């Protein structure tokens, strides 16, 4: 993992300009994807993980706009801004045009698998026809060749009797089979990177297991890199090599998967892990995170997690932490955006605890929903940007 990253994202910001104000859905995130690895993008609904992944391919629609940052893929600039002569920002010259993104990058270099396989397939065309057309257009094959290739791909992703299934329509496929078709479509042009946006969320556990195994096999075979967007830490533990945890538009922790679970450095990640019921052991008491995630329209000052954080102190209200390297994980950096770590050196230890953060179990119960409402009247599903 010493070579150049396949994809480098620096300080990416995507905002939605709505009537109610500017929603800072993605607010300055940086991460890298190296060849052949699966990178997780984890967070609850509204954390901005889907918007972030769509921004990479410039698939953000109005009123949304990428307002800052740089996305570099194999040395090419997918997105980049620079200061213009009058001090305003303008797009960099080497940034790929929409045309180039469409013909060269999307599908051929970077493919996407969406959450809902029914909505991603056109119900009035046969599954095979859609796959064939995709291959025909992107790889410039003749119709017959593309058809053969499409059938091969269907077989590759474990669809039985592919010649027969080629002629069928999406509604004749089960959810798991449709998701296999989308994987076939994503793999058809042998891209170097696949963005998978909650691809198994809508599936049953046994089918999810089948798909995860399939991805694992195909990833080994083709060496494709993945950005795996999910809210499920179980899936993360199973499949990812490195993980980015997002909270309210920002990456709060970035670590290899083992360190994330066994040497957790951010209180949000910790809280998330503790609030989960476990399939592998009986947890007597769940420790929920208090309140709900505030809206990205008017995020809390300082650290955005401080109103819900059990470790919050006065300083957390003032200082906004950027992720910094807080530990070394076998040569790889383990980053966290929490001022309780020494590298931040902003006087966390001396700072008094925030009032009402954690004051006894008794008051928590009745206080919690009120703060929930005060923070945000309809907090769970802002915008519905492809969350659950």
């Amino acid at each position, binding site marked *: 993992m010493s070579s150049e990253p396949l994809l480098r994202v620096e300080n990416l910001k995507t905002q939605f300009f709505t009537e109610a104000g500017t929603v800072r859905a993605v607010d300055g995130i940086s991460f890298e994807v190296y060849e052949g690895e699966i990178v997780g993008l984890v967070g609850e609904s509204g954390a901005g993980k889907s918007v972030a992944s769509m921004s990479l391919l410039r698939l953000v629609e109005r009123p949304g706009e990428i307002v800052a940052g740089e996305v570099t893929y194999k040395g090419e600039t997918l997105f980049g801004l620079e200061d213009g002569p009058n001090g305003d920002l303008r797009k960099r010259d080497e940034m790929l045009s929409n045309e180039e993104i469409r013909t060269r990058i999307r599908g051929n270099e970077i493919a996407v698998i969406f959450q809902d396989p029914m909505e991603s397939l056109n119900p009035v065309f046969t599954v095979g026809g859609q796959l064939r057309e995709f291959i025909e257009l992107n790889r410039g094959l003749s119709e017959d060749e593309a058809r053969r290739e499409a059938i091969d791909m269907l077989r590759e992703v474990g669809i039985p009797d592919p010649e027969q299934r080629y002629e069928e329509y999406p509604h004749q496929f089960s959810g798991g089979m449709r998701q296999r078709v989308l994987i076939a479509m994503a793999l058809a042009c042998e891209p170097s990177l696949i963005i998978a946006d909650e691809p198994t969320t809508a599936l049953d556990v046994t089918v999810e*297991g089948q798909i995860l195994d399939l991805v694992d096999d195909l990833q080994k075979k083709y060496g494709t890199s993945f950005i795996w967007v999910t*809210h499920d830490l*179980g899936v993360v533990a199973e499949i990812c090599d490195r993980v980015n945890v997002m909270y309210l538009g920002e990456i709060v922790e970035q670590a290899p998967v083992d360190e994330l679970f066994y040497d957790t450095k951010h209180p949000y990640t910790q809280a998330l892990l503790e609030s989960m019921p476990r399939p592998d052991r009986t947890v007597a008491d769940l420790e929920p995170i208090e309140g709900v995630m505030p809206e990205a329209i008017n995020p809390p000052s300082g650290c955005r997690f401080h109103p819900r954080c059990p470790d919050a102190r006065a300083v957390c209200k003032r200082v906004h932490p950027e992720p910094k390297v807080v530990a070394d994980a076998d040569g790889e950096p383990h980053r966290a955006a929490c001022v309780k770590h020494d590298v931040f050196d902003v006087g966390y230890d001396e700072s008094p605890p925030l009032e009402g953060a954690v004051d006894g179990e008794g008051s928590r119960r009745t206080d*919690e929903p009120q703060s929930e409402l005060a923070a945000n009247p309809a907090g*769970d599903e802002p915008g519905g940007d492809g969350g659950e």
Partner: protein
Amino acid sequence: MAVSSDLRTSEARDADRDGPLLELEGVSKYFGQGSGLFGGLQFDPDTFPPISVDRERVKAVDDVSLEIQPGETLGLVGESGCGKSTLGRTILRLLEPTDGDIYFRGENLADLSGEKLRQKRSEIQMIFQDPQSSLDPRMKVGQIIEEPMRAHGMGDDEGREARAKELLEKVGLDPRHYNRYPHAFSGGQRQRINLARALSVDPDFVVCDEPVSALDVSIQAQVLNTMERLQDEFGLTYLFIAHDLSVIRHISDRVAVMYLGHIVEVAEKEELFENPQHPYTKALLESIPVPDPRESGARGVLEGEVPSPQNPPSGCRFRTRCPQLIAPEAYELTEEEWAHTRAFMRAVKRRTFEPIAAAEMRREFFDDDLPRGDAGEIVRDAIDAIATDTERGGESADERDGWAEATDHLLEPFAEQSICARERPAYDLEPAYGSGEHFAACHRHR
């Protein structure tokens, strides 16, 4: 507050405890195909008469028997389409059971109708999955919570309002939000409103249909904790329907696993998760991604897909996918021979491989070692029908016929003759954990 006396405490309820609170006996729910006057009619010009009445019915819930003890939480888990929600609704008589009896405190709900049933509904309530669509957006929260009380003629206006406010506080909301509309609340809070509404008529039994699956993890934990607290406080009995095994493991006392309309296993929570005895339960447990990167347990991925409930497999419904399908007794197959034959039979049935030469097939599926005796003959015949280099397989006009023939050829003597296909299993086992009953519908325990 005079109303508070309505809220019976759990001790008061313990008094009327004897036997199970709810008992299902052979409950079935079938759905007809299509709807409307001509919905069941089929037109087929090739037959005479060309119109027939479609008798095929979807067996969503088929002959389910269960007991739920007062004060416990029974988790009902299964994949989508297994019939768990239908069962929940049938218990409430929101759906008419096709067959069977539902005893609630000894009274058969399946016999009740009209006013009597309506009155009974104050004792059984339901919480739905989608907190958005289960609340009327044009009603204020107060009205929503009071509506069931009004329907059951409980209290006067003032009393109802006082109780609604009390309930808002109990479920962890601010009573001052009595006059707000549902849209002003987040998903987790809406589910709390649902809870308050269900509790308003002071039920004993609540059917919770995926109550937390639409919520984010951190919110999920909040709502689960509230539900547990309310259960203690009001002495409630829950039937908790969910597909998420982690949630089930957290909240249940006992767990029932459902597959294609049948209950396949019932046991106490610890027993079911630590000592599962049905191959389906095992597969389900192995499939869950565990939030632990060091847990690299091999997954016993299930082959194939769930069969149609319209025409479910005979005997054990899981047998068509079961990794431990029992060998038919007629052929004395060794375990290895049977494993090979079983894998080959399923591969042919699902057409998971491309036609290849006979020798190649033998190598791939049987290590060049066909079973002895009659079984070997059957396998050889099937290979002949699909191989590319045999007379029958190679020259067959339509390749598809060969596969269908081979499939029939294999299924009839092997799959259909297995005890799994001939008898419906039902066995009571000794538990390894705890002292409760352990039911498993699997013939390996015969």
